[in-house]
């Protein structure tokens, strides 16, 4: 397999943008990724483009990949949409990595996009919340707030996790987002306010969930040997793993862990030849606060019992031993569904290069970064490990 480098990465700010079209948002993300390539790059070099989107903004557009590519100046690249719910662009990234690693193409693009603000609320509630077992979960009475709430309740029961530890994820990630101009929620949140927020699905409140947002992200990859001519600081993709699992929570033997993530992580660590202890920074899929605590154990950072304590002791805070979601995570940076996976990669690329514009949130000397992107409540997951330039 050919070694794979990321030479450029960019994203739009994650915001509610009712005035911007899908085409404009995706073009802006590609432009950001191209202009991130230090020594210049002609996007026409891109041979394949993989674009993650759950539902193209609820419009269910066909030929969506070519449409986005055309508007971003990539006409002629073999473009396709990749869909795996909230992990769509994590899987798109995997496809682009494999396209280069296999030797098939020299340049590939992975990206993602979602517009969640186009449709009226009633119609939005039709296309959102369809990434579980719709027939036996949604139509029994619950979609993701309730599903993650049931995971949270069981986590508290089995592992002694507290409500304060769960809400603490939002407090931490909101504090990280204050310094990130790309983030949607930049006001800090106190634990007191998080716990006092109205209940969404007991034990989770409104501060434990993501809101509506719009955005796009894009990453450009090439062979390692070609990267040096284009950028001084290529980031290497050293580990890639993907997995899936039964889609309904009730069909899993244990509902406080995500086996799709465990499968993906095992592949990613094995291919990178690193251990969880080698990871210096991680962007994890905190679609609900409890999901970040699941990630700590599923990724091998600690046991399920220790997840709450890892958070409590500040180990995953900026400045801690293993900073998690320094971008603000999904909770605070925003979660435009299809754009999230390559948005996480974009953050890690800048962190590992040491090129974060806001120096107060730059993690110093990080060598290995991990991205964890989950579809729905764990029906699918992609885990990638990136290595800083030497």
């Amino acid at each position, binding site marked *: 397999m050919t070694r794979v480098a990321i030479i450029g990465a960019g994203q739009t700010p994650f915001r509610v943008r009712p005035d911007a079209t899908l085409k404009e948002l995706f073009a802006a993300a590609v432009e950001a990724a191209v202009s991130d390539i230090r020594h210049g790059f002609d996007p026409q070099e891109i041979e394949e483009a993989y674009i993650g989107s759950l539902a193209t903004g609820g419009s269910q557009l066909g030929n969506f990949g070519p449409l986005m590519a055309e508007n971003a100046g990539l006409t002629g690249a073999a473009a396709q949409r990749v869909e795996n719910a909230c992990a769509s662009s994590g899987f798109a990234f995997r496809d682009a990595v494999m396209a280069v690693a296999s030797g098939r193409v020299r340049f590939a693009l992975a990206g993602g996009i979602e517009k969640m603000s186009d449709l009226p609320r009633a119609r939005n509630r*039709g296309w959102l919340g369809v990434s579980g077992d719709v027939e036996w979960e949604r*139509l029994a009475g*619950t979609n993701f707030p309730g599903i993650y709430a049931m995971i949270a309740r069981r986590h508290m029961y089995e592992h002694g996790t507290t409500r304060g530890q769960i809400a603490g994820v939002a407090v931490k990630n909101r504090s990280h987002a204050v310094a990130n101009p790309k983030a949607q929620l930049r006001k800090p949140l106190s634990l007191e306010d998080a716990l006092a927020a109205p209940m969404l699905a007991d034990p*989770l409140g409104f501060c434990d969930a993501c809101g509506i947002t719009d955005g796009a992200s894009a990453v450009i990859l090439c062979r390692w040997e070609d990267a040096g001519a284009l950028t001084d600081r290529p980031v290497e993709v050293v580990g890639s793993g993907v997995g899936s699992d039964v889609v309904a929570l009730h069909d899993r033997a244990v509902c406080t862990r995500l086996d799709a993530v465990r499968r993906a992580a095992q592949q990613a660590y094995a291919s990178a030849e690193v251990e969880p202890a080698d990871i210096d920074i991680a962007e994890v899929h905190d679609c609900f606060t409890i999901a970040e605590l699941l990630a700590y154990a599923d990724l091998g950072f600690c046991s399920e019992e220790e997840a709450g304590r890892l958070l409590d002791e500040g180990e995953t805070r900026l400045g801690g031993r293993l900073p998690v979601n320094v971008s603000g995570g999904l909770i605070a940076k925003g979660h435009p569904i299809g754009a999230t996976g390559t948005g996480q990669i974009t953050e890690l690329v800048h962190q590992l290069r040491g090129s974060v514009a806001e120096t107060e949130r730059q993690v110093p000397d990080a060598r290995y970064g991990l991205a964890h992107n989950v579809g729905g409540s764990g029906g699918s997951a992609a885990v990638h490990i990136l290595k800083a330039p030497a």
Partner: protein
Amino acid sequence: MTSYISLPLYAASIGQRLRLEAARCSDCGAFTYPQRPVCQNCHGRSFSAERLSGRGRLHTYTVIAPGGAPAEFDHQQAMTGALAVGIIDLVEGPRLTAQLADVEVEDLHIGLAMRAVVRRLYDQEGVIRYGTKFVPDEAP
């Protein structure tokens, strides 16, 4: 716009929805419920339908605030406010996600003995869709 199960599909699944008919694998004896074309234990494909008792215990649960449930339940939430949902460990092994009825939310706890009842779930195209909910089981 909401998610959708057509009337013919709904009619075809009444046995498993209302009578809790599971697919019992002819090869390994495991129950697959809700039914699927492939045994979830051994991947066999031949089954006989067998009714589950509907008795079980609450594995986990949540109480969803008004507006937090799927759009199909807006009408119900407008009338009843919060909506309780749980995952039930059925005694035969399968688990099921269902609404919890006839119980005060303060009385819900993991391990609570419950039994299945047939209740109205939601209306679609003027037809009431019935399904399974769980209520406390007085004599487990």
